[in-house]
């Protein structure tokens, strides 16, 4: 092998190794699930290490929101249409917090398996549809689409 070919071979193999390692690391990073909210199913299955703060994301279960009298504390359930987790939050809920909406809460699980949130994030929904469609959904889907904000 001439020195030139040898040089080229070394360069190409370095390139291949570098890209291989890089892609491997990307795959590992994607596996780490840094989207960082656990679903209620994962929480129920005990995938979250105990005593650790984490984020939980899901839909607020219809009719599950109850306010404790005289306090700011709110109890509600979060589901991913498979499993449900009870949440407890003391504080002012965001305006866009609605039953049936997706939210993310940050906090810890307590001993009884209730998630005590210290932060709740909500987002407007991204569906664009005309009022008639919305009405149709409302009537057919029963109480799924209750747009009243929780006061």
């Amino acid at each position, binding site marked *: 092998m001439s020195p030139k070919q040898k040089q080229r071979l070394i360069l190409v193999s370095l390139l291949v190794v570098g890209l291989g390692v890089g892609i491997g690391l990307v795959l590992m990073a994607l596996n780490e699930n840094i989207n*960082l909210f656990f679903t209620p199913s994962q929480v129920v299955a005990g995938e979250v290490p105990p005593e650790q703060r984490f984020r939980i994301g899901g839909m607020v279960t219809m009719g599950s929101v109850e306010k404790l009298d005289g306090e700011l504390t709110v109890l509600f359930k979060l589901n991913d249409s498979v499993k449900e987790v009870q949440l407890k939050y003391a504080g002012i809920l965001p305006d866009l917090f609605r039953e049936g909406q997706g939210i993310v809460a940050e906090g810890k699980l307590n001993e009884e398996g209730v998630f005590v949130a210290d932060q709740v994030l909500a987002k407007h929904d991204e569906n664009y549809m005309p009022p008639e469609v919305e009405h149709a959904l409302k009537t057919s889907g029963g109480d799924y689409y209750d747009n009243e904000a929780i006061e």
Partner: protein
Amino acid sequence: MNTRNPFIAMLFRDLRIAFRQRAEIMLPVIFFVVVVSLFPLAISPDPTVLKSIGPGVIWIAALLSILLSLQSLFRSDFSDGSMEQILLSPFPGSLLMLARIVAQWCVTGLPLIIISPLLGLLLHLDAHVIWVLFISLLLGVPYLNMVGAIGVALTIGLRQAGALLSLLVLPLYVPVLIFGSNAVISASNDLPYNGQLLWLAALLVIATTLSPFVISFALRVSCSYR
């Protein structure tokens, strides 16, 4: 040291040159420290505030001081004609440029990484958070050097290179800034940060593999303009 290995020869030449202009190589580190110490003055000396903005502040200051140090990369090589000789050597330009950037990292990036725990203390970060900060900078700063060098190679020889360089390079720095500072923030919130660090490592490996080729090609292009 006299060696026949061009990579080592290039690395030692640049390190030697850098250590003979000590004042110049200290500037980015001093800039780093000064910028970070301005934030408590401008925002608040309250430890809880500093704790929450600390990771971002240190990362932005690191990014800016690397950007500052890039201004002198390749400039003297370009003006004294040694760049022509480097481009006309029978060795792959990518290898020589890698040596050039490793040297640059040793004199600008490394001191900054080493001093960062101290700044973490100044901003009241906890010990384990400082550790994550250190690792994130160790993985992220070489990336800033690598990708920054592409921008330098493209703008070298232009009159208004400085401002243009920032415009070219800063959008490319965004992912590292996000993952780097977020790893530290996650650590300070007791959240997992492995994913972010893995991303930093991945970006570093890919940049180290590809950018030497881009840099040497870009320098060839820039040098053909006189």
